[in-house]
């Protein structure tokens, strides 16, 4: 295992020390595992707290700041945070208007956030939770764990964060977050596995001419292994799967072409061109695009395509000013 680390056990706290050093706009507790806006708590503002396993950077710590998250709680690599962290973050940002927990739909994340929400209410902090489950590679069913939360988490955090920044009430911010999740879908493809530092070995083996379709963001294999294809074929597989679940014809969409961590930007732009071509050919209009490594899976190569069917209000909130380490415009 060749990695730019000091020791596997220190990966998360060492990285948090770097985030603290690079971004004075954040208050970081590298040991407790919280990243908080330096100006928190903001009186009367609904606070957004998210978190999950580390290894998806810049998600979530890179999205803490004006117009997005108030705090993030990074867990161990690919492991959900523990309730203590989530409570500490919620208390640090609570400005009296309530706290919204943005939770990706993984059993561990859901359980730890649920335990934390119950304990936060003992501290008289009102908590609402929204669960993001946008990944169409997984069949949804009441008998299973359901779909994973992936790329649309960025859409939810940006748009709900903008509404909270405007002073909206907790119920309205939570409703907006749910609306974004309901209108968003994602599908990912892996061209290589990744290596969890503490495990030291790749999460799966992939032949030279193979790829994994329908991956998540934890280095797990996907739904299916197929022969590697071109960028056009990969994007077609992703958008066809999304379109089959949520028809895109006639829609005005927000498009995220998301690198998984090990794919260069030049290839992501090739995928972006393919996605624009595919969407135009299928009667959809791309109103906004974002390309880059935003919701990653360590050094996994590949990409994830996420689409949100916009409304004029959602477009307005997407365009609203944001100032975080990883996403900034309009200020």
């Amino acid at each position, binding site marked *: 295992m060749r990695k730019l680390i000091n020791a596997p056990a220190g990966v998360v706290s060492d990285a948090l020390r770097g985030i603290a050093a690079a971004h004075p706009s954040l208050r970081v507790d590298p040991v407790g595992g919280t990243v908080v806006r330096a100006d928190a708590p903001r009186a009367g503002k609904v606070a957004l707290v998210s978190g999950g396993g580390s290894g998806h950077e810049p998600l979530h710590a890179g999205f803490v700041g004006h117009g997005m998250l108030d705090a993030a709680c990074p867990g161990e690599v690919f492991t959900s945070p523990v309730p203590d962290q989530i409570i500490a973050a919620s208390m640090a940002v609570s400005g009296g208007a309530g706290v919204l927990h943005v939770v990706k739909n993984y059993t561990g994340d859901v359980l730890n956030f649920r335990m934390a929400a119950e304990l936060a209410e003992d501290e008289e902090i009102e908590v609402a939770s929204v669960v993001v489950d946008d990944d169409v590679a997984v069949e949804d069913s009441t008998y299973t764990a359901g779909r994973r939360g992936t790329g649309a988490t960025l859409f939810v955090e940006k748009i709900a964060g903008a509404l909270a920044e405007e002073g909206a009430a907790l119920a309205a911010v939570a409703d907006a977050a749910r609306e974004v999740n309901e209108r968003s879908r994602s599908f990912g493809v892996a061209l290589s596995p990744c290596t969890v530092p503490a495990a030291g070995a790749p999460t799966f083996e992939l032949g030279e001419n193979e790829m994994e379709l329908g991956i998540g963001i934890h280095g*797990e*294999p996907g739904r299916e292994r197929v022969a590697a294809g071109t960028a056009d074929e990969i994007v077609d597989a992703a958008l066809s799967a999304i379109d089959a679940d949520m028809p895109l014809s006639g829609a005005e969409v927000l498009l995220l072409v998301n690198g998984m961590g090990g794919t260069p930007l030049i290839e992501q732009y090739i995928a972006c061109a393919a996605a624009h071509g595919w969407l135009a050919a299928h009667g959809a209009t791309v109103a906004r695009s974002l390309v880059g490594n935003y919701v990653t899976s360590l050094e996994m190569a590949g990409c994830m395509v996420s689409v949100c069917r916009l409304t004029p209000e959602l477009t307005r909130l997407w365009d609203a000013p944001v100032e975080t380490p990883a996403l900034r415009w309009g200020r």
Partner: protein
Amino acid sequence: MNAAGAARWIRHTAHLVSADAERLTRLDAAIGDGDHGLNLDRGFTAAVAAVDALPGDTTPAKVLIAAGRAIVSKTGGASGPLYGTALRRAGKALAETGGDELDAAALGAALTAALEGVQELGQAAEGDKTMVDALVPAVTAYEAALAGGADIAACARAAADGAAQGAESTVPLQARKGRASYLGPRSAGHLDPGAASTALILRALADVTMEGGGDAWSGSS
């Protein structure tokens, strides 16, 4: 079963988990994200520290509750809340029975409470390819042994055997809960790591009750 016995169970579990961490992680890498052994090792290490910090005059109930709290606080993932809740519920059931020495019936009630806690929180049923597939046969075997008049060590051994068989039974299953469910049909053909770690925890229980002499846990830790 006394407090020292309960503490030995937690310590012995930590030892077994640590020794088997690599295998658990390997099982998890096949159908999950490859960190189950690492996470449980961290959680049970914290549980041992919490148990060691208890005062000398503690009870079995307090030992299990302290261990459960530490596991919730330090493990993360789904296994932290699930195992933490299982131990806390078991401890609370023992607290209702009261006393410093608990018999086979009280331990059986504690295991049943642990199972109920896991199912309530995780919403998994038998056959979903989770820790429930090891825990249900363990509790069933324990209760059957108890009804047949077995002592605490024989009951615990029956539970450990039931859990081991239950864990093996997950191999052909397609996962419906947890991260393995994302693989769909590809999750079949693998042993569920959560069921495997549940079998370890019950093996630890059988080992320490046997050391205790059969009728009850006794002796110092």
